[in-house]
């Protein structure tokens, strides 16, 4: 099937969504995604950040679609022509979506753990306007502890439902969901029941903003000061493939590995995430592949004193032997989570 996005034509499999096709072309064409998360079944369609204009439905029926469509859940048709950043209507709608998402957002980026790797920051930077038009009081919520490791700051939440799908699909027993309606809707656990599950920590990784944070990492550091390193261990519960985040020679955070789109490759267990915080727990593979535009890369490519080889060298000198036959498949477009 042929589909044209922003004047670039690509051949894709039937059943591909516009978002997937655009991602195959590259990051400069891919629409932003706040709620869509490829590994999670049923995600997408909610945030409306990825709205695009379909100017020709298909070869057979070249009529344009009357409304903007969410690219993450709209399947391509043969001969479809899509306008993403080349359409002013799309850009205007996205400005609106940024404005709506920030309307009740506390804008506490200076103290937010997610700052620097926040999808809302990226989205607002790319598509937002610099001036706010609201003078209304923001809706606020109390912070909640979801078990010993996770804290929920509902003020920052954009209700993408990713954590709900994760809790549904990765963890057993459904105690995590959305309560109430409209702008007073909130993520919550069943009558404040702690999420008590070996994989519950993954909700932190899927959260696009700083609503769900790791209590073992909270306020410890800024992400741009850290150096991410791929590592693995023999874990009986999960794949054991993680990213370690170093500050100096201290592991201050463990997360699952993410691809270019910020999507988790293998969900990891809580033991790996919260308990194994010594370098000796891990076999170091090498520096995480970070996109050059990422704020994290400042530590790796920017300053001449810190070379990309730094973690490799450090690990080789001080710790276990380096296994450089890393599985790179996580950089490829992903399959749906089974």
């Amino acid at each position, binding site marked *: 099937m042929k589909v044209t996005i922003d004047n670039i034509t690509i051949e894709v499999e039937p059943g591909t969504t516009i978002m997937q096709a655009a991602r195959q072309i590259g990051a400069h064409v891919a629409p932003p995604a*706040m709620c869509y998360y490829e590994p999670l079944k049923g995600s*997408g*369609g*909610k*945030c*409306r*950040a990825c*709205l695009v204009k379909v100017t020709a439905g298909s070869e057979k029926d070249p009529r344009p679609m009357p*409304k*903007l469509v*969410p690219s993450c*859940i709209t399947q391509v048709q043969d001969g479809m022509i899509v306008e993403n950043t080349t359409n002013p209507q799309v850009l*205007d*709608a996205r*400005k*609106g*979506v940024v*404005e*709506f*998402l920030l*309307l*009740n957002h506390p804008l506490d980026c200076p103290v937010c753990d997610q700052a620097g790797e926040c999808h809302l920051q990226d989205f607002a930077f790319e598509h937002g306007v610099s001036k706010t*038009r*609201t003078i*209304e*009081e923001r*809706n606020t919520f109390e912070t909640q502890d979801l078990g010993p490791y996770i804290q929920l700051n509902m003020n920052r939440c*954009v*209700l993408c*439902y990713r954590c709900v799908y994760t809790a549904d699909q990765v963890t057993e027993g459904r105690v995590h*969901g*959305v309560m*109430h*309606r*409209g*702008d*007073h*809707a909130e993520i919550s656990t069943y009558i404040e029941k702690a999420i008590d599950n070996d994989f519950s920590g993954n909700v932190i990784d899927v959260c696009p903003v700083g609503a769900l944070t790791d209590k073992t990492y909270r306020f410890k550091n800024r992400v741009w000061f850290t150096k991410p390193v791929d590592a693995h261990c023999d874990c009986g519960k999960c794949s054991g493939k993680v990213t370690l985040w170093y500050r100096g020679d201290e592991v201050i955070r463990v997360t699952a590995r993410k691809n270019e789109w910020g999507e988790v490759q293998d969900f990891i267990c809580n033991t790996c995430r919260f308990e194994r915080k010594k370098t000796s727990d891990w076999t170091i593979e090498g520096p995480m592949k970070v996109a050059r535009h990422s704020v994290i890369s400042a530590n790796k490519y920017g300053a001449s004193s810190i070379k990309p080889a730094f973690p490799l060298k450090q690990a080789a000198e001080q710790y276990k032997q380096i296994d450089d036959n890393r599985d790179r498949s996580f950089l490829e477009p992903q399959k749906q989570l089974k």
Partner: protein
Amino acid sequence: MKILTQHIDVPGIETIDVYRKHGGYSAVEKAIKTMAPDEVTEEVKKSGLRGRGGAGFPVGMKWSFLAKPEGVPRYLVCNADESEPGTFKDHYLMMKSPHTLIEGMIVSSYALGANTSYIYVRGELMYVINILEKAIQEAYDKGLLGKNILGSGYDLDLFVQPGGGAYICGEETALLESLEGKRGNPRNKPPFPAVKGLYQCPTVVNNVESIAATSWIVNNGGEEYAKIGVGRSAGTKLISVSGHVRKPGVYEIPLGITVEDFIYSDEWCGGIRDGHKLKAVVAGGSSVPILPAELILKTTNGENRLMTYESLSDGGFATGTMLGSGGFIVMDETTCIVHNTLTFARFYHHESCGQCSPCREGTGWMDKVIHRIEHGKGRMEDIDLLVDVAKKIEGNTICPLGDAAAWPVAAAIRHFRDEFEWHVKHPEEATKPGAVFMREGASWTL
């Protein structure tokens, strides 16, 4: 010409014996004994009956879209959620004559080949649910429901499901989610319910009034039904009138009478209450654009506006509105449009499901801004802000609730901008109890 409410005032019509004495359930006998399911669908197509819930999509066409894979059950779901402010026609019909709906359900289910059907009733109407339950039991007792209806071999089970009273559950896919026992969040479309609906099976969702009309169509033929009304607006429509008229209530009108007739003739609303003048009308439930007196009575071409889908939407949203669900709200010159818009905005803010960002945040924002204007704290730029916010919600949401929230605000500003400006400019005067702006030279100015 009355179709649905012909016998509605007969004492005891809610019981099956009285209902049958007045020709009730003849459509079931005719359809099941003498017609093939496709023939029933064909009659409904010929009738030109359009969905009475608000969108006005042709019922026969909706039925023909129903996927019919082998070995997969199909469902008919009756949308009796009716929560649109200003609309109370289904409520009235079910309360007074429950068998009219049940007869329609049997005929429609037969046409679609559904063996299980549901009536999803809004949770607040518990007594209506009791009335329906009782009527369904009577129908079971007479062999009109259950196994082997009238010896034909066709089986149908009919269930009534109370909802939780959320406005969003009147949206068909949210209704299906709710019916499945989940949180009533609208689904992304496609797939449409006709392909994957209730329990992922092909499903048709129709309004109470649409389903109830099918039995008359079976009895008298689709062509007879198409003769009533004008052009593509065929048949009769229940209109629930509220507001400042002499005789508010539910009226069954043949589509095609003029709006002026409807408001002023003694047969229907009986005119505006004494000593007052018509200011504005919301013609089809709170979500359709409000129109000022001169535009609701006449189109911009100077023609009389008719009670039809086409005539009411003549001129687009710039000068027109929609027939919608038939919730006809009439306002005289004592109504403050800003206050009225605030009431609507507050409703949509409260009822937004919170799934998609434009509707979740936008409805709350509009509510807060209009609240400020109404309470004397508005700024001039707020008026344009509201227009822009409404524009950014409209069309960008998962379900039509976003549009429904945006339209009334945009229309109120489009037609009554001076009133909003007056609130901003003269906050002290505007916040006095009962204060209303009088437009100079307007037809409603006393």
